[in-house]
């Protein structure tokens, strides 16, 4: 079984983002970038399937600017076999990412694609489902457990009311939720080995995909600030304030 895993380069989850003074976006200069945390979970899942002998090859793909190769190297250091970089400096929106990944799927014929359930920058939660639709495949979204047997995958999904299990015909797209696994840290020898692994590069033109954005960002604003910092001395004052000042109980 061949697995393709998407790894997106995003602002590190510990960074407190700031809106730019001219309201065109958020400050990205000199900000720490990392692999989207859900994509670390995606790579981990694929590598575990590889180690278990269920998968035969794991390919990490990232789409975007030149520096995405760093994110691909991280995935290779975690255990992916090779990388694919779809290189563009243009803004990529989920539908375009899905179309580009479809073109790659048609070249590589994976049995499973694993992506994050959402990227923590744009929080769209669209890409995996869109790819599944374009391929005409089933989707196992927000997965907390994936088991493969006899051409089917049984996926346990985190849904609003609890957990749901579905049986899906392969090939499939899986989107990872937080509790699927705990990603490993790459060891130094594996980081060194990763430098020698192959990364193929394509442009959107090579793949014959029109990746132009169809959603225009008109402006970006900081959210209204919240006035916090109030303190109470004890539970009696707390209950009194909630009842008589805020009127919420």
């Amino acid at each position: 079984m061949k697995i393709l895993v998407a790894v997106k380069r995003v602002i590190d989850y510990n960074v407190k983002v700031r809106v730019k003074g001219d309201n065109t976006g958020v400050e990205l200069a000199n900000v720490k970038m990392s692999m989207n945390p859900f994509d670390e979970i995606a790579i981990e899942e694929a590598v575990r399937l590889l180690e278990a002998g269920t998968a035969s090859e794991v390919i990490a793909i990232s789409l975007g600017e030149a520096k995405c190769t760093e994110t691909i190297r991280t995935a290779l250091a975690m255990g992916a076999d090779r990388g694919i970089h779809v290189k563009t400096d243009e803004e990529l929106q989920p539908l375009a990412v899905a179309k580009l990944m479809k073109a790659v799927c048609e070249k590589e014929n994976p049995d499973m694609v694993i992506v994050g359930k959402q990227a923590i920058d744009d929080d769209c939660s669209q890409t995996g489902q869109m790819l599944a639709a374009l391929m005409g495949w089933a989707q196992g979204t927000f997965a907390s457990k994936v088991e493969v047997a006899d051409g089917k995958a049984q996926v346990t999904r985190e849904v609003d009311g609890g957990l749901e299990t579905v049986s899906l015909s392969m090939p499939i797209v899986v989107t990872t939720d937080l509790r699927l696994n705990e990603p490993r840290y790459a060891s130094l020898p594996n980081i060194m080995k990763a430098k020698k692994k192959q990364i193929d590069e394509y442009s959107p033109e090579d793949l014959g995909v029109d990746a132009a954005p169809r959603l225009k960002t008109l402006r970006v604003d900081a959210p209204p600030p919240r006035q916090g910092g109030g303190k109470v001395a004890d539970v009696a004052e707390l209950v009194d304030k909630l009842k008589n000042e805020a009127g919420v109980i």
Partner: protein
Amino acid sequence: MTVLVVAEHDNQEIKGATLNTVTAAIALGAGDVEILVAGENCQTAADGAAAISGVSKIRMVDNALYANALAEPFAALVVSLAGDYSHIVLSHTTHGKNVAPRVAALLDIVQVSDIMEVKSPDTFVRPIYAGNAMATVQASDEKLVITVRGTAFDKAELSGSAPIEATNASDDPGLSSFVGQELTRSERPELTSARIVVSGGRGMQSGDNFHLVEAVADRIGAGVGASRAAVDAGYVPNDYQVGQTGKIVAPELYMAIGISGAIQHLAGMKDSKVIVAINKDEEAPIFSVADYGLVGDLFEEMPALAAELDKQGIKPR
């Protein structure tokens, strides 16, 4: 132009989030609003939808194929109906997030996720970076798929009486089947629609200690939530998680107990009207968003709070 709202329901009752989504659909100002109720033996749910104010028609699809709202057949159904509509609107819940992108991709149109404000039929405000920035975005496509953040819109009233039109099922893509579910049963209000939410974090130390949270919650009629750390540690089920990657809540009162206030947690609750924090660390970031912060040990403060609520005669509303 007509707008289609995809209702979420359990074949009996329409979920609260759909009421907020209808308000957003009406705010589009694009034209009539119709509701799709697809399920198995879903007449009662369709009747419920027909009572929502401001809706012109209910399209009911009653077929075993939609019993569990699997994304593959459900999206195929929505696509088969899409020709009649300018906007297809879903709630930004796990159901909406599962189905909407599939519909958008099959129609080759953009999806605008998690909108918090409608500026015009093609322009919306949506949060990015865990709500630390608000993007105003404009779509160029003729037809749009939208998911709606429920807490940003009021619930629609229930004084309508729209006609119900039976509608045909579409083909089964035959890709998926339902195996089972493990739903969390709770007598308490559902998190995203509760008027009050009390959440516990890693500071609770164990699942057993959550009875301290529940004791306070039950005295004020609150839903119970948790931080990711508490869910990961197995204190409570996954569907309790509040935050960027869990549930977004904006109740009248949110109480954070033994929660530090990480960006990802704040993203899920900072639009609450009143925020209370109980934490033993006075430097905890949660205090910077709290209206009423109480520095103290939760194992003393929570039982004392329950007793104080009794003493001051507070009852659930």
